[in-house]
């Protein structure tokens, strides 16, 4: 009899787990739900935002890492003769991360269309151009005492299908003995097409686009 009760209790616990994982989840926090289902707040900008997000993760144990992220974009400009031409421009941002929970991660948003994304000012030289700045072990929190490290990561190319407008590109630095700076870079892509389209919380990146458009004045 006691065994039957135990089995029944375990079965009920399993059903509760099913219910918690179902659409009407109230058993788990929004944080957990978004981590597993992604329908609380968006994890990708989505196609309507006109943005690409680059998410940078420092997964080292005790190093501060500055990522030098360059996005190559095709923009319309007017030349000296008044003709509209397409120019390739690079937008480079420097983003610091620290080996502390939550502060080990930061991101940046770039307007579409983005042609390529890489590390370093010159993304065509990933094996010689410093793509990251790493603090030495003795000065883990002071990037000023650090040194530049080539990323050895070829740039992601939207024309090759590596990513598209609305996706999240993830670049992670991990410790790797034997590599320069004992650091290694990995790249990932979270496509917007794999994500939910409806969210329980704010549609973050659509709000970003609306906010930016509201700031355009008549003079612009």
């Amino acid at each position, binding site marked *: 009899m006691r065994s039957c009760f135990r089995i029944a209790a375990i079965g009920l616990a399993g059903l509760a787990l099913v219910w918690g994982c179902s659409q009407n989840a109230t058993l788990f926090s929004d944080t957990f739900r978004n981590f597993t289902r992604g329908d609380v707040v968006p994890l990708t900008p989505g196609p309507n935002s006109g943005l690409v997000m680059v998410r940078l993760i420092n997964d080292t144990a005790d190093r501060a890492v500055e990522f030098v992220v360059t996005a190559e974009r095709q923009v319309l400009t007017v030349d000296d003769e008044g003709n509209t031409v397409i120019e390739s421009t690079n937008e480079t941002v420097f983003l610091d991360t620290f080996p502390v929970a939550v502060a080990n991660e930061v*991101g940046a948003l770039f307007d579409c269309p983005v042609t390529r994304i890489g590390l370093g000012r010159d993304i065509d030289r990933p094996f010689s151009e410093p793509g990251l700045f790493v603090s030495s072990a003795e000065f883990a929190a002071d990037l000023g005492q650090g040194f530049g490290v080539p990323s050895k990561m070829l740039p992601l190319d939207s024309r090759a299908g590596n990513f598209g407008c609305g996706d999240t590109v993830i670049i992670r630095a991990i410790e790797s003995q034997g590599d320069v700076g004992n650091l290694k870079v990995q790249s990932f*892509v979270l496509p917007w097409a794999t994500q939910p389209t409806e969210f329980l919380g704010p549609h973050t990146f659509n*709000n*970003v686009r609306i906010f930016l458009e509201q700031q355009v004045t008549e003079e612009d």
Partner: protein
Amino acid sequence: MLALGQRSEAHSAGRRLLVAAGLALACIASGTSCNLTSAFNPEFVELFDAGGTGEFATVENATGHVPLIFVNNLRYSSQLVSYLGKLQEERRLSGLEDTQIPLSSLRPRVRFRVQVIYDTDDPNNTVQYEFVVGDGVFEVELREEEDEDLGLPPPPVDPNLTENTLSRLVAACNVARVEILGNAQVFVPVFVRTIRVEVGDLAQQTRTLVATDNPQFRPILPDDVDENLNTVLARNFGIREAPAPAINITCGSLVGIVISGTVSVPFTAPEDEPEDEFIAEQSAVPGFVDTDIPREASIPGRFEFLVTVQ
């Protein structure tokens, strides 16, 4: 024959089997929704040149993001645009190689530091970032290279003029507070002169050059006020218009920081002012008389901040 209370091995195995079957049925019934790892892990993109080794890696999804968006709505004053346009025209007429800069659409360069405080128990939960955005043009680019009479020193090379641009940052959840640290700074793209006026024995005014400030980033300062909060010296923004910290930030919301206003500098007749007033007005240069405190305090202009959480 089993003793009382002693179970056979078959009974124990059967009970374990029933437990496992119960759990398995529960998970099967839920389909994939019960996958406790992220059900849609980011795809690993392996980018190696030829001969690279194969590798597989996974990374967890974030729990959410808080974008920090900075919008620069600054403009140069019409007087400053006219002055820069005049210099650009002089350079063009002198035949120096030049690309015409569309001065009327220039955005003044502004920078400030932002502190992000994360909502964790870790004592190291604060990170600072520097936002920099705007055009980095300055006077020396437009001035004639052979103008040795000015004797003006070359402006310093500041990487924040053309590099380090950042206006859209994405922080990971959860963010507790976002605030601007210290004073924001605006780049003044011209040399600013300090002129001293001395009156001689015959009431004749003599203007002499006291100092020349290079094009540089200048801090945006609040007005000086008395004990009743009345303005006694107008500087760059009212004390009630100071940028407020962003609080009550939920995961998924965005923090917007907007700066509006006009970058301007006072103009005055140069130290070698000609006698004709009309000519003196036409040759006005960025500067102020050293006793004119309000005009000096007005540099680099008048501004407003807006910090919103949406």
